[in-house]
């Protein structure tokens, strides 16, 4: 397993589900620990599955937070600009379906090739391509940047 490569990917994958930097980090490490204690073919798919399951456990543990609350997202650097941007991204992503989100994160946050996404999600390559295209336009719309 290319752990250097997947560490950041799994972190981003989890971050976009839990929206908390330090929780994302803890879960990332937990995911790897669980992963390394196991063996099997398709390690990447398995790793993502572990990550997803950890997030689901995490949702159950904490009560859902509403975006309307006054909480400030936990961010790497707290410049107002990036804070606003990241809040926008979060809000936009939350308007999308679970599946859209998943595809967008894998494709853009994690730079996974279409072929790999198809393998990870079990959706055909063509379908991945088509759904991504739709998801992308929905995201653009949600971000209010339809013009481009």
């Amino acid at each position: 397993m290319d752990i250097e490569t997947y560490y950041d990917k799994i972190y981003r994958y989890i971050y976009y589900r839990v929206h908390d930097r330090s929780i994302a980090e803890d879960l990332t490490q937990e995911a790897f620990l669980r992963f390394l204690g196991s063996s099997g073919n398709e390690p990447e798919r398995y790793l993502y599955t572990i990550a997803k399951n950890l997030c689901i456990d995490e949702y159950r543990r904490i009560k859902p937070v509403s975006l309307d609350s006054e909480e400030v997202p936990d961010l790497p650097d707290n410049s107002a600009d990036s804070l606003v941007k990241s809040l926008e991204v979060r809000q936009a992503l939350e308007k999308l379906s679970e599946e859209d989100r998943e595809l967008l994160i894998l494709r853009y946050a994690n730079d996974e090739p279409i072929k790999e996404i198809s393998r990870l999600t079990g959706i055909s390559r063509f379908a991945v391509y088509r759904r991504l295209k739709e998801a992308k336009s929905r995201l653009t719309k949600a971000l209010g940047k339809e013009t481009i």
Partner: protein
Amino acid sequence: MELVADRLTKQYDNKIAVDRLSFTLKPGVTGLLGANGAGKTTLMRMITGILSPTSGEITYDGKEVKSEEYRNILGFLPQDFGYYPEFTGKEFLMYFCALKGLSKKDAKVRTSELLKMVVLEDVANKKVRKYSGGMKQRLGIAQALINRPEVLILDEPTAGLDPKERVRFRNLIEELGKESIVLLSTHIVSDIENIADRLIMMRSGRIIWDGKWTEENGSLEEFYLKEFE
């Protein structure tokens, strides 16, 4: 995490470069001070396993310094290093990533991470021979960090760095020292005065001071000048 040197000696023909040194290094920054020719470089090369001691031995947690296991956790910045003339900064790091056992995928990720860390992303695709002294030195430091070393040996790492780079470098070393054994040689007192948890001073192959330098000891600079110049 313990690096143990036991009666380490290196003799060249009839000159003794390192004379029966014994010490134990633990996580933290250890500064190795001494004038040129004091035996610092010879000592560091023995610690990295490049040079075999005439007698005595060095082990890290029971591992021999000539072992693969040790090289796997070792980072080293030599006093001077070269590169293939066709190498860009990125290619240079990719090469050493490969030699250190990273897969191509991991090598790419680690390389870009390190380039960012030493602030060379902008010149990543420029030939190393076009780099300034400070840039080349930063590349060398990045190279030493590829495998996230537990033992980091830096021979005159601040050579060629400008004041700004020095500050950045000091912060980096301080951070690294929290987790790893860092041994850093220099002949510039101010480089390590504030960050070294421990000082080893060498003269003619022997240790003349070993311990933490505190204010009670007076000015390190003055001591150094008195002892070495």
